């Protein structure tokens, strides 16, 4: 059971994170933390028209929270903001068990389904996605108010 949580892909993303670091001139930056365990994730990204062109993350915390941030940076780079929003919804559904993992559409992220048996770790797995979701909401609100 524990091996379902800590699958190879998770360890890989934890140890060789994609997109860990900072942007020289981040256009958008948003952070979040899981106060119960202290996990922290900061997301920076850039936008070209509707497309998210660049995602970097920093922060610290358990392997799940950091691997999940890495997977997100990888999966959402190049997606439009609408696509990203839809993708985030899919990830929540995956974590909750509402949809089954599908390697084809979700890639590495399927491995996050392992948290289902560890309810308290769902917050770790969803942290980075919540941070980006919040950031996109902020963007939308700014755009609409113009």
């Amino acid at each position, binding site marked *: 059971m524990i091996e379902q949580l800590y699958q190879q892909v998770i360890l890989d993303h934890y140890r060789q994170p994609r997109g860990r670091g900072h942007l020289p001139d981040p256009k958008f930056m948003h952070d979040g933390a899981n*106060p119960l365990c202290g996990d922290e994730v900061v997301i920076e990204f850039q936008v070209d028209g509707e497309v998210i062109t660049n995602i970097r993350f920093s922060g610290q915390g358990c392997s799940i929270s950091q691997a999940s941030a890495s997977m997100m940076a990888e999966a959402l780079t190049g997606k439009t903001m609408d696509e990203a929003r839809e993708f985030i919804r899919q990830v929540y559904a995956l974590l909750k068990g509402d949809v089954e993992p599908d390697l084809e559409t979700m890639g590495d992220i399927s491995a996050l389904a392992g948290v289902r048996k560890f309810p*308290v770790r769902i917050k770790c797995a969803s942290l980075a996605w919540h941070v980006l979701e919040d950031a996109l909401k902020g963007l939308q609100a700014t755009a609409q108010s113009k």
Partner: protein
Amino acid sequence: MATTTVRTIDAKAIRELFPFFTPHEEMRSLIYLDNGATTQKPRAVIERMVDFYSYHNANVHRGAYGVGAKASEMFENARERIAQFLNAKESAEIIITKGTTESINLVASTWGESLQPGDEIIISEMEHHANILPWMQLVERKGAKLIVWKITDEGKLDLQELQSLLTDKTRMVAVMHISNVLATVNPVKEICALAHKAGAKTLIDAAQSVAHMPVDVQDIDCDFFAFSGHKLYGPTGVGVLYGKREILETLPPYQRGGGMIKRVAWDQVSWAGIPSRLEAGTPPIAEVVGLHAALDFVDEIGRDKIEAYEWELTQYALERLQEIPGLKLYGPVDYRAGLLAFNVGDVHPHDIQTVLDTEDIAIRAGNHCAHPLGDRLGTPATARASLAVYNDEAHIDALIKGLHKVREVFQLD
């Protein structure tokens, strides 16, 4: 002396849910009429705490999985339940304290920080010390002013009078929901509306109301609402402060310690959001879990039913107390909560209490932590019988018999 009222509640059946009222070696059985001081605890409350300590005990929050996560979940579920009990918008509006007293002190200390010299706080003349002293200290510290809303001769609060006290300097109107001496049920919804129209905030001391009537903080529209677990069939050591989110979010921390910060460095501290920011240190975990069970107990009976039943019983008591020559009852008689504060001739309330005690009837005697009200009523002390859902007419009958005995011992004829 039968009553004609329909019995909406079977008090005897309810007493059977309480170890305190089931025959036991340790104590003779008691007619307990001191519910204004603290209520007895149903078996369900005691057992929920025993269950917690026996099988789920762990500290909450801060990175625990397994048993710790379960304890955190039970704790946060209780917070949700309290929010629902009060009809708060969300559980983040529920701050766990150690009691009404701490809840009010917390507001006076944190919200009170924003007070300016010359600002005014209105409290009523019937308040408990817990809703007097924190404000006295605050106005002194801030150069503000405490305005006392006098009671009528009947023992009520007059809304006209409040109108005339409200000024553009009024920042807070803090009043009790039900008086622990007069038993007056104050019109808190109307009070909050008037206060808000004048731009003031409101705090309701609900220590004596939550166990005895339905309450809905959104309907009352108060800004703060405070009560204790132990007067609500729950454990000691736990209380609640409800506050509207938009106000709680502006408050600085109260006590400082673990659990209420995001990050501490020697040169900089950032606070956690609500409710955590206002809850430093290990909270009263088992007590909160026990309080959850107490709310379930009350709602299983139904707060509408409890209110109606206690009013029936109160009417019966009011009627029968008239039999006692020389008895002076305080507070309104047209409508009131189930508290009966009185004196009998020149007999000191402690002596009334002692005589009743030998008859196995527990009442309270003293100033009930409301000295200014005692001064207004012209009596430093009263005897007080206070009802709860497990009391019935037979208890009132015993009280009346006991009061006749008081008159006899003190040769009042």
